[in-house]
Protein backbone atom coordinates (compact mmCIF):
# COMPACT_ATOMS: atom_id res chain seq x y z
CA UNK A 1 0.00 0.00 0.00
CA UNK A 2 1.12 3.55 -0.73
CA UNK A 3 -0.08 6.35 1.55
CA UNK A 4 -0.42 9.85 -0.01
CA UNK A 5 1.34 11.90 2.69
CA UNK A 6 0.08 15.51 2.45
CA UNK A 7 3.65 16.92 2.77
CA UNK A 8 5.86 14.15 1.34
CA UNK A 9 3.77 12.58 -1.42
CA UNK A 10 3.29 8.84 -1.88
CA UNK A 11 5.07 6.85 0.85
CA UNK A 12 5.23 3.09 1.42
CA UNK A 13 2.87 1.98 4.21
CA UNK A 14 5.80 0.01 5.68
CA UNK A 15 7.26 3.33 6.89
CA UNK A 16 4.23 3.76 9.15
CA UNK A 17 2.96 2.27 12.39
CA UNK A 18 -0.77 1.65 12.56
CA UNK A 19 -2.72 2.68 15.65
CA UNK A 20 -6.35 2.08 14.68
CA UNK A 21 -9.59 4.01 14.54
CA UNK A 22 -9.14 7.78 14.21
CA UNK A 23 -11.87 8.27 16.82
CA UNK A 24 -9.14 7.39 19.37
CA UNK A 25 -8.18 11.09 19.14
CA UNK A 26 -11.43 11.89 20.99
CA UNK A 27 -10.38 10.90 24.49
CA UNK A 28 -13.16 11.07 27.15
CA UNK A 29 -13.09 13.77 29.80
CA UNK A 30 -11.59 12.18 32.95
CA UNK A 31 -13.43 14.60 35.24
CA UNK A 32 -16.87 13.46 34.10
CA UNK A 33 -18.99 11.41 36.54
CA UNK A 34 -19.21 8.46 34.13
CA UNK A 35 -15.50 8.67 33.21
CA UNK A 36 -14.75 5.07 34.26
CA UNK A 37 -17.37 3.64 31.93
CA UNK A 38 -16.46 6.08 29.18
CA UNK A 39 -12.77 5.09 29.35
CA UNK A 40 -13.60 1.34 29.27
CA UNK A 41 -15.58 1.92 26.08
CA UNK A 42 -12.84 4.21 24.68
CA UNK A 43 -10.05 1.68 25.32
CA UNK A 44 -11.82 -1.54 24.31
CA UNK A 45 -14.80 -0.99 21.99
CA UNK A 46 -14.51 -0.31 18.25
CA UNK A 47 -16.90 0.43 15.38
CA UNK A 48 -14.80 -1.78 13.06
CA UNK A 49 -16.67 -1.05 9.81
CA UNK A 50 -16.42 -3.11 6.62
CA UNK A 51 -15.88 -0.30 4.13
CA UNK A 52 -14.64 3.26 4.57
CA UNK A 53 -12.60 3.64 7.77
CA UNK A 54 -10.75 6.69 9.13
CA UNK A 55 -7.64 5.55 10.95
CA UNK A 56 -4.38 6.76 12.51
CA UNK A 57 -0.99 6.05 10.94
CA UNK A 58 2.29 7.27 12.52
CA UNK A 59 5.09 8.03 10.05
CA UNK A 60 7.65 6.43 12.34
CA UNK A 61 10.36 5.86 9.74
CA UNK A 62 9.73 9.25 8.13
CA UNK A 63 8.85 12.71 9.37
CA UNK A 64 7.20 11.30 12.58
CA UNK A 65 3.90 12.98 11.84
CA UNK A 66 0.52 11.42 12.64
CA UNK A 67 -1.86 11.06 9.71
CA UNK A 68 -5.57 10.43 9.51
CA UNK A 69 -5.89 8.05 6.56
CA UNK A 70 -9.25 7.24 4.96
CA UNK A 71 -9.18 3.69 3.63
CA UNK A 72 -11.63 1.06 2.40
CA UNK A 73 -11.15 -2.04 4.58
CA UNK A 74 -12.76 -4.31 1.98
CA UNK A 75 -10.39 -3.37 -0.87
CA UNK A 76 -7.39 -1.67 0.84
CA UNK A 77 -7.99 1.35 -1.44
CA UNK A 78 -6.75 4.59 0.17
CA UNK A 79 -9.13 7.47 -0.37
CA UNK A 80 -7.14 10.25 1.30
CA UNK A 81 -4.73 11.31 4.02
CA UNK A 82 -4.56 14.42 6.21
CA UNK A 83 -2.21 15.56 8.95
CA UNK A 84 -3.78 14.68 12.32
CA UNK A 85 -2.80 18.17 13.54
CA UNK A 86 -5.01 19.66 10.79
CA UNK A 87 -7.91 17.35 11.73
CA UNK A 88 -7.65 18.24 15.40
CA UNK A 89 -5.58 21.41 16.08
CA UNK A 90 -3.87 21.28 19.45
CA UNK A 91 -3.44 17.51 19.35
CA UNK A 92 -5.24 14.71 21.12
CA UNK A 93 -6.84 15.52 24.46
Amino acid at each position, binding site marked *: *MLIPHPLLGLRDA*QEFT*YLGDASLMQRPDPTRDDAEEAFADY*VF*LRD*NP*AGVHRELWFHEAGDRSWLVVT*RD*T*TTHEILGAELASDVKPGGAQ
Partner: protein
Amino acid sequence: MTFSGFKVVKEALTGHKGWRPLWRDPDPKPAYDIVIVGGGGHGLATAFYLAHTFGELKVAVLEKGWLGSGNIGRNTTIIRSNYLLPGNEPFYEFSMKLWENLEQETNFNSMVSQRGIINLIHTDGQRDAYRRRGNAMLLAGADARLLGRDELRQMVPFLNYDNPRFPIKGGLMQSRAGTARHDGVVWGYARGADQRGVDIIQNCEVTGFRIEGGAVQGVETSRGYIGAKKVGVAVAGNSSRVMSMAGMRLPIESHVLQAFVSEGLKPTIPGVITFGAGHFYVSQSDKGGLVFGGDIDGYNSYAQRGNLPVVEDVIEGGMALMPMIGRARLLRAWGGVMDMSMDGSPIIDRTDIDGLYFNGGWCYGGFKATPASGYAFAHLLATDRPHETATAYRFDRFARGHVIDEKGVGAQPNLH
Protein backbone atom coordinates in the same frame (compact mmCIF):
# COMPACT_ATOMS: atom_id res chain seq x y z
CA MET B 1 -25.35 -43.65 5.22
CA THR B 2 -22.63 -44.75 7.65
CA PHE B 3 -18.98 -44.83 6.69
CA SER B 4 -17.16 -48.10 7.41
CA GLY B 5 -14.41 -50.24 5.95
CA PHE B 6 -17.07 -52.59 4.60
CA LYS B 7 -18.88 -49.68 2.87
CA VAL B 8 -15.66 -48.48 1.24
CA VAL B 9 -14.87 -51.97 -0.14
CA LYS B 10 -18.45 -52.48 -1.33
CA GLU B 11 -18.45 -49.15 -3.18
CA ALA B 12 -15.05 -49.89 -4.70
CA LEU B 13 -16.45 -53.14 -6.16
CA THR B 14 -19.71 -51.63 -7.43
CA GLY B 15 -18.49 -48.55 -9.27
CA HIS B 16 -18.94 -46.02 -6.44
CA LYS B 17 -22.62 -45.57 -7.34
CA GLY B 18 -23.90 -45.70 -3.76
CA TRP B 19 -22.38 -42.49 -2.32
CA ARG B 20 -24.90 -39.78 -1.45
CA PRO B 21 -24.57 -36.06 -0.58
CA LEU B 22 -23.39 -35.63 3.00
CA TRP B 23 -26.17 -33.24 4.02
CA ARG B 24 -29.61 -32.13 2.75
CA ASP B 25 -30.29 -28.74 1.12
CA PRO B 26 -33.55 -27.72 2.84
CA ASP B 27 -35.55 -24.50 2.43
CA PRO B 28 -35.81 -22.46 5.63
CA LYS B 29 -38.84 -23.20 7.84
CA PRO B 30 -40.84 -20.24 9.25
CA ALA B 31 -39.37 -20.68 12.75
CA TYR B 32 -36.88 -22.67 14.82
CA ASP B 33 -36.06 -23.02 18.49
CA ILE B 34 -32.44 -22.03 17.89
CA VAL B 35 -30.92 -20.32 14.86
CA ILE B 36 -27.14 -20.31 14.49
CA VAL B 37 -25.81 -17.48 12.31
CA GLY B 38 -22.64 -18.63 10.54
CA GLY B 39 -21.97 -22.02 8.91
CA GLY B 40 -18.27 -22.14 9.68
CA GLY B 41 -16.51 -24.60 11.94
CA HIS B 42 -17.76 -23.04 15.16
CA GLY B 43 -21.36 -22.63 13.96
CA LEU B 44 -21.58 -26.19 12.66
CA ALA B 45 -19.90 -27.61 15.76
CA THR B 46 -22.44 -25.70 17.88
CA ALA B 47 -25.32 -27.17 15.88
CA PHE B 48 -23.80 -30.65 16.07
CA TYR B 49 -23.42 -30.61 19.86
CA LEU B 50 -26.87 -29.01 20.30
CA ALA B 51 -28.41 -31.95 18.47
CA HIS B 52 -25.98 -34.66 19.60
CA THR B 53 -25.38 -33.79 23.26
CA PHE B 54 -28.15 -31.41 24.34
CA GLY B 55 -31.09 -32.99 22.46
CA GLU B 56 -32.12 -29.78 20.68
CA LEU B 57 -33.86 -30.79 17.45
CA LYS B 58 -35.37 -27.63 15.93
CA VAL B 59 -32.07 -26.00 15.03
CA ALA B 60 -31.00 -24.22 11.84
CA VAL B 61 -27.59 -23.01 10.68
CA LEU B 62 -27.62 -20.01 8.32
CA GLU B 63 -24.57 -19.53 6.07
CA LYS B 64 -24.28 -16.54 3.72
CA GLY B 65 -22.10 -18.44 1.23
CA TRP B 66 -21.22 -22.12 1.07
CA LEU B 67 -19.89 -24.29 3.89
CA GLY B 68 -16.17 -23.93 4.32
CA SER B 69 -15.86 -20.59 2.50
CA GLY B 70 -14.77 -18.64 5.57
CA ASN B 71 -11.94 -19.05 8.05
CA ILE B 72 -12.38 -22.82 8.46
CA GLY B 73 -11.16 -23.10 4.87
CA ARG B 74 -8.41 -20.49 5.34
CA ASN B 75 -6.18 -21.59 8.21
CA THR B 76 -3.09 -23.69 8.90
CA THR B 77 -4.97 -26.66 10.48
CA ILE B 78 -2.95 -26.81 13.73
CA ILE B 79 -4.57 -28.25 16.85
CA ARG B 80 -2.91 -27.84 20.26
CA SER B 81 -3.59 -26.96 23.90
CA ASN B 82 -0.28 -25.40 24.97
CA TYR B 83 -1.69 -22.37 26.77
CA LEU B 84 -0.65 -20.86 30.10
CA LEU B 85 -3.45 -18.92 31.78
CA PRO B 86 -6.16 -20.50 33.97
CA GLY B 87 -8.93 -18.92 31.86
CA ASN B 88 -7.53 -20.55 28.72
CA GLU B 89 -5.68 -23.82 29.34
CA PRO B 90 -8.59 -25.99 30.61
CA PHE B 91 -10.73 -24.81 27.68
CA TYR B 92 -8.15 -25.69 25.03
CA GLU B 93 -7.37 -29.02 26.71
CA PHE B 94 -11.12 -29.78 26.64
CA SER B 95 -10.97 -28.99 22.92
CA MET B 96 -7.98 -31.32 22.48
CA LYS B 97 -9.90 -34.17 24.12
CA LEU B 98 -12.86 -33.56 21.79
CA TRP B 99 -10.48 -33.63 18.80
CA GLU B 100 -9.17 -37.01 19.94
CA ASN B 101 -12.68 -38.48 19.79
CA LEU B 102 -14.05 -36.40 16.92
CA GLU B 103 -13.90 -39.02 14.16
CA GLN B 104 -15.68 -41.65 16.26
CA GLU B 105 -18.35 -39.15 17.31
CA THR B 106 -19.09 -37.83 13.82
CA ASN B 107 -18.34 -41.09 11.93
CA PHE B 108 -16.24 -39.02 9.53
CA ASN B 109 -12.54 -39.03 8.72
CA SER B 110 -11.36 -35.55 9.71
CA MET B 111 -7.73 -36.73 9.46
CA VAL B 112 -6.85 -35.77 13.03
CA SER B 113 -3.11 -36.42 13.21
CA GLN B 114 -1.36 -36.10 16.58
CA ARG B 115 2.11 -35.53 15.21
CA GLY B 116 3.23 -33.18 17.98
CA ILE B 117 4.15 -29.51 18.28
CA ILE B 118 7.46 -28.00 19.33
CA ASN B 119 7.79 -24.38 20.54
CA LEU B 120 11.45 -23.45 20.10
CA ILE B 121 13.49 -21.88 22.92
CA HIS B 122 16.16 -19.27 22.13
CA THR B 123 17.04 -17.71 25.47
CA ASP B 124 17.32 -18.73 29.13
CA GLY B 125 14.38 -16.48 29.95
CA GLN B 126 12.28 -18.17 27.30
CA ARG B 127 13.21 -21.58 28.74
CA ASP B 128 11.95 -20.45 32.16
CA ALA B 129 8.73 -19.18 30.59
CA TYR B 130 8.16 -22.44 28.71
CA ARG B 131 8.96 -24.53 31.78
CA ARG B 132 6.27 -22.57 33.63
CA ARG B 133 3.87 -23.00 30.71
CA GLY B 134 4.59 -26.74 30.59
CA ASN B 135 3.79 -27.03 34.29
CA ALA B 136 0.54 -25.09 33.79
CA MET B 137 -0.38 -27.52 31.00
CA LEU B 138 0.36 -30.56 33.20
CA LEU B 139 -1.77 -29.08 35.98
CA ALA B 140 -4.69 -28.74 33.56
CA GLY B 141 -4.37 -32.38 32.52
CA ALA B 142 -2.53 -31.78 29.24
CA ASP B 143 0.86 -33.22 28.31
CA ALA B 144 4.12 -31.29 28.02
CA ARG B 145 7.80 -32.08 27.86
CA LEU B 146 10.87 -29.84 27.87
CA LEU B 147 13.39 -30.83 25.19
CA GLY B 148 17.12 -30.19 25.45
CA ARG B 149 19.14 -29.02 22.49
CA ASP B 150 20.66 -32.45 21.75
CA GLU B 151 17.36 -34.30 21.88
CA LEU B 152 15.75 -31.63 19.70
CA ARG B 153 18.61 -31.88 17.21
CA GLN B 154 17.98 -35.59 16.80
CA MET B 155 14.26 -35.03 16.19
CA VAL B 156 14.53 -32.07 13.79
CA PRO B 157 18.12 -31.89 12.50
CA PHE B 158 17.34 -29.46 9.68
CA LEU B 159 16.90 -26.31 11.82
CA ASN B 160 19.53 -23.57 11.93
CA TYR B 161 20.78 -24.18 15.48
CA ASP B 162 23.56 -21.59 15.31
CA ASN B 163 21.62 -18.57 14.10
CA PRO B 164 23.65 -15.75 15.72
CA ARG B 165 20.60 -13.77 16.82
CA PHE B 166 18.26 -16.63 17.78
CA PRO B 167 20.37 -19.74 18.58
CA ILE B 168 18.10 -22.71 19.32
CA LYS B 169 18.49 -23.91 22.92
CA GLY B 170 15.66 -26.44 23.15
CA GLY B 171 11.92 -26.64 22.91
CA LEU B 172 8.61 -27.26 24.64
CA MET B 173 6.89 -30.30 23.16
CA GLN B 174 3.24 -31.28 23.28
CA SER B 175 3.04 -34.76 21.74
CA ARG B 176 -0.76 -34.89 21.58
CA ALA B 177 -0.96 -31.72 19.46
CA GLY B 178 -0.88 -31.92 15.69
CA THR B 179 -3.07 -31.13 12.71
CA ALA B 180 -6.53 -31.98 11.36
CA ARG B 181 -7.94 -31.71 7.86
CA HIS B 182 -9.88 -28.41 7.94
CA ASP B 183 -12.41 -29.34 5.23
CA GLY B 184 -12.92 -32.73 6.89
CA VAL B 185 -13.84 -30.93 10.10
CA VAL B 186 -16.54 -28.84 8.35
CA TRP B 187 -17.96 -31.78 6.43
CA GLY B 188 -17.93 -34.09 9.46
CA TYR B 189 -19.77 -31.61 11.70
CA ALA B 190 -22.20 -30.61 8.91
CA ARG B 191 -23.04 -34.24 8.13
CA GLY B 192 -23.35 -35.14 11.83
CA ALA B 193 -25.64 -32.18 12.53
CA ASP B 194 -27.76 -32.85 9.44
CA GLN B 195 -28.20 -36.52 10.36
CA ARG B 196 -29.57 -35.41 13.73
CA GLY B 197 -32.19 -33.13 12.16
CA VAL B 198 -30.42 -29.74 11.93
CA ASP B 199 -31.35 -27.69 8.83
CA ILE B 200 -28.21 -26.34 7.19
CA ILE B 201 -29.28 -23.44 4.97
CA GLN B 202 -26.61 -22.15 2.61
CA ASN B 203 -26.66 -18.94 0.53
CA CYS B 204 -28.78 -17.35 3.23
CA GLU B 205 -27.32 -14.07 4.49
CA VAL B 206 -28.62 -12.52 7.69
CA THR B 207 -29.51 -8.88 6.94
CA GLY B 208 -30.96 -7.87 10.30
CA PHE B 209 -32.37 -8.93 13.66
CA ARG B 210 -36.00 -8.54 14.70
CA ILE B 211 -35.85 -7.32 18.30
CA GLU B 212 -39.02 -6.43 20.27
CA GLY B 213 -39.08 -5.32 23.90
CA GLY B 214 -35.40 -6.13 24.37
CA ALA B 215 -35.85 -9.73 23.19
CA VAL B 216 -34.87 -11.26 19.86
CA GLN B 217 -37.76 -12.67 17.80
CA GLY B 218 -35.89 -13.87 14.74
CA VAL B 219 -33.62 -12.83 11.88
CA GLU B 220 -34.24 -11.13 8.55
CA THR B 221 -32.37 -12.96 5.81
CA SER B 222 -31.86 -12.86 2.06
CA ARG B 223 -34.30 -15.81 1.97
CA GLY B 224 -37.01 -14.17 4.10
CA TYR B 225 -37.79 -13.79 7.79
CA ILE B 226 -36.97 -16.73 10.09
CA GLY B 227 -38.38 -16.77 13.60
CA ALA B 228 -36.28 -18.05 16.50
CA LYS B 229 -36.55 -18.31 20.28
CA LYS B 230 -32.78 -18.00 20.52
CA VAL B 231 -30.18 -16.73 18.06
CA GLY B 232 -26.49 -17.63 18.38
CA VAL B 233 -24.02 -15.61 16.31
CA ALA B 234 -20.77 -17.40 15.38
CA VAL B 235 -19.42 -15.45 12.42
CA ALA B 236 -15.81 -14.75 13.47
CA GLY B 237 -14.21 -12.32 11.06
CA ASN B 238 -17.51 -10.51 10.56
CA SER B 239 -18.62 -10.34 14.21
CA SER B 240 -18.59 -6.54 14.39
CA ARG B 241 -20.53 -6.22 11.14
CA VAL B 242 -23.26 -8.68 12.19
CA MET B 243 -23.59 -7.53 15.81
CA SER B 244 -23.80 -3.88 14.70
CA MET B 245 -27.15 -4.87 13.13
CA ALA B 246 -28.29 -5.53 16.71
CA GLY B 247 -26.88 -2.17 17.81
CA MET B 248 -23.82 -3.57 19.59
CA ARG B 249 -20.20 -2.43 19.53
CA LEU B 250 -17.60 -5.13 20.27
CA PRO B 251 -14.05 -5.12 21.69
CA ILE B 252 -12.90 -6.44 18.31
CA GLU B 253 -11.03 -5.25 15.22
CA SER B 254 -10.93 -7.28 11.99
CA HIS B 255 -7.42 -7.95 10.66
CA VAL B 256 -6.12 -10.19 7.90
CA LEU B 257 -3.75 -13.11 8.57
CA GLN B 258 -1.93 -14.69 5.65
CA ALA B 259 -0.83 -18.30 5.28
CA PHE B 260 1.23 -20.07 2.66
CA VAL B 261 1.80 -23.53 1.20
CA SER B 262 4.75 -24.82 -0.80
CA GLU B 263 4.83 -27.43 -3.55
CA GLY B 264 4.45 -31.03 -2.38
CA LEU B 265 7.62 -32.55 -0.93
CA LYS B 266 8.57 -35.93 0.50
CA PRO B 267 7.98 -36.27 4.28
CA THR B 268 10.32 -33.65 5.76
CA ILE B 269 8.85 -32.07 8.87
CA PRO B 270 7.64 -34.57 11.48
CA GLY B 271 5.26 -32.32 13.44
CA VAL B 272 4.48 -28.65 13.92
CA ILE B 273 7.39 -26.29 14.68
CA THR B 274 6.90 -22.76 15.99
CA PHE B 275 9.55 -20.04 16.03
CA GLY B 276 8.03 -17.51 18.41
CA ALA B 277 11.01 -15.15 18.45
CA GLY B 278 10.72 -14.55 14.70
CA HIS B 279 7.02 -15.42 14.54
CA PHE B 280 6.95 -18.25 12.04
CA TYR B 281 5.28 -21.64 12.27
CA VAL B 282 5.36 -24.57 9.90
CA SER B 283 3.96 -28.05 9.43
CA GLN B 284 3.65 -30.43 6.50
CA SER B 285 0.29 -31.40 5.08
CA ASP B 286 -0.66 -34.97 4.21
CA LYS B 287 -0.27 -34.01 0.53
CA GLY B 288 3.33 -32.95 1.21
CA GLY B 289 3.08 -29.16 1.05
CA LEU B 290 4.85 -27.15 3.74
CA VAL B 291 2.11 -25.07 5.41
CA PHE B 292 3.35 -21.95 7.18
CA GLY B 293 2.47 -18.49 8.36
CA GLY B 294 3.46 -15.62 10.65
CA ASP B 295 2.11 -12.27 11.77
CA ILE B 296 -1.15 -10.53 10.88
CA ASP B 297 -0.89 -7.67 8.38
CA GLY B 298 -1.62 -5.27 11.23
CA TYR B 299 -4.36 -2.92 10.03
CA ASN B 300 -8.14 -3.31 9.82
CA SER B 301 -9.14 -5.41 6.82
CA TYR B 302 -12.09 -7.42 5.53
CA ALA B 303 -10.34 -8.17 2.23
CA GLN B 304 -9.48 -11.89 2.67
CA ARG B 305 -6.15 -11.13 1.05
CA GLY B 306 -2.91 -9.67 2.36
CA ASN B 307 -0.11 -7.48 1.13
CA LEU B 308 3.42 -8.33 0.02
CA PRO B 309 5.51 -6.88 2.91
CA VAL B 310 4.16 -9.57 5.27
CA VAL B 311 4.92 -12.26 2.68
CA GLU B 312 8.55 -11.10 2.76
CA ASP B 313 8.57 -10.98 6.57
CA VAL B 314 7.21 -14.51 6.94
CA ILE B 315 9.61 -15.97 4.36
CA GLU B 316 12.53 -14.23 6.12
CA GLY B 317 11.46 -15.91 9.38
CA GLY B 318 11.32 -19.26 7.60
CA MET B 319 14.74 -18.79 6.01
CA ALA B 320 16.28 -17.83 9.37
CA LEU B 321 14.87 -20.96 11.01
CA MET B 322 15.34 -23.57 8.28
CA PRO B 323 17.45 -22.35 5.36
CA MET B 324 16.45 -25.43 3.32
CA ILE B 325 12.97 -23.93 2.89
CA GLY B 326 14.50 -21.60 0.29
CA ARG B 327 14.74 -24.58 -2.11
CA ALA B 328 10.97 -25.12 -2.10
CA ARG B 329 8.68 -23.22 -4.44
CA LEU B 330 5.76 -21.31 -2.96
CA LEU B 331 2.52 -22.69 -4.41
CA ARG B 332 -0.11 -20.36 -3.00
CA ALA B 333 -0.98 -17.84 -0.30
CA TRP B 334 -4.29 -16.83 1.18
CA GLY B 335 -5.70 -14.52 3.83
CA GLY B 336 -8.39 -15.03 6.44
CA VAL B 337 -10.18 -12.27 8.33
CA MET B 338 -9.49 -12.47 12.07
CA ASP B 339 -11.65 -11.16 14.90
CA MET B 340 -8.78 -9.59 16.85
CA SER B 341 -10.13 -9.11 20.36
CA MET B 342 -8.55 -6.59 22.73
CA ASP B 343 -6.84 -9.17 24.98
CA GLY B 344 -6.28 -11.89 22.39
CA SER B 345 -8.86 -14.21 23.96
CA PRO B 346 -12.34 -15.17 22.73
CA ILE B 347 -15.84 -14.23 23.90
CA ILE B 348 -18.66 -16.77 24.45
CA ASP B 349 -21.48 -15.01 26.24
CA ARG B 350 -25.07 -13.82 26.37
CA THR B 351 -25.76 -10.26 25.21
CA ASP B 352 -27.94 -7.60 26.79
CA ILE B 353 -30.67 -8.58 24.30
CA ASP B 354 -32.73 -11.56 25.55
CA GLY B 355 -32.22 -14.63 23.39
CA LEU B 356 -29.21 -13.23 21.52
CA TYR B 357 -25.91 -15.03 22.15
CA PHE B 358 -22.43 -14.33 20.85
CA ASN B 359 -19.37 -16.44 20.06
CA GLY B 360 -16.35 -14.70 18.52
CA GLY B 361 -13.08 -12.87 19.02
CA TRP B 362 -10.99 -15.97 18.29
CA CYS B 363 -8.06 -13.95 16.92
CA TYR B 364 -5.88 -16.37 14.92
CA GLY B 365 -6.56 -19.32 17.24
CA GLY B 366 -10.03 -20.34 16.17
CA PHE B 367 -9.35 -23.60 14.37
CA LYS B 368 -7.92 -25.54 17.32
CA ALA B 369 -10.85 -24.33 19.43
CA THR B 370 -13.55 -25.53 17.01
CA PRO B 371 -14.87 -28.51 19.05
CA ALA B 372 -14.77 -26.83 22.48
CA SER B 373 -16.13 -23.57 21.08
CA GLY B 374 -19.06 -25.47 19.58
CA TYR B 375 -19.60 -27.49 22.75
CA ALA B 376 -19.40 -24.50 25.10
CA PHE B 377 -21.66 -22.38 22.89
CA ALA B 378 -24.20 -25.22 22.61
CA HIS B 379 -24.07 -25.55 26.43
CA LEU B 380 -24.75 -21.82 26.81
CA LEU B 381 -27.59 -21.83 24.25
CA ALA B 382 -29.24 -24.94 25.70
CA THR B 383 -28.87 -24.24 29.44
CA ASP B 384 -28.27 -20.45 29.65
CA ARG B 385 -25.20 -21.18 31.79
CA PRO B 386 -21.59 -21.01 30.58
CA HIS B 387 -19.72 -24.29 30.20
CA GLU B 388 -17.31 -24.83 33.10
CA THR B 389 -14.23 -24.37 30.86
CA ALA B 390 -15.55 -21.14 29.31
CA THR B 391 -16.59 -19.12 32.36
CA ALA B 392 -13.86 -16.54 31.80
CA TYR B 393 -14.93 -15.67 28.24
CA ARG B 394 -17.39 -12.94 29.19
CA PHE B 395 -18.04 -9.54 27.59
CA ASP B 396 -17.68 -7.66 30.86
CA ARG B 397 -14.13 -8.85 31.57
CA PHE B 398 -12.64 -5.79 29.86
CA ALA B 399 -14.57 -3.24 31.91
CA ARG B 400 -13.97 -5.25 35.10
CA GLY B 401 -10.24 -5.52 34.43
CA HIS B 402 -10.29 -9.34 34.25
CA VAL B 403 -8.72 -9.61 30.80
CA ILE B 404 -7.14 -12.93 29.74
CA ASP B 405 -4.05 -11.43 28.19
CA GLU B 406 -2.13 -14.57 27.11
CA LYS B 407 0.48 -12.61 25.13
CA GLY B 408 0.68 -9.67 27.53
CA VAL B 409 0.25 -6.96 24.91
CA GLY B 410 -2.93 -5.37 26.25
CA ALA B 411 -5.61 -3.54 24.41
CA GLN B 412 -3.95 -3.22 21.02
CA PRO B 413 -5.28 -5.93 18.74
CA ASN B 414 -2.73 -5.40 15.98
CA LEU B 415 -0.04 -6.55 18.43
CA HIS B 416 -1.66 -9.91 19.25
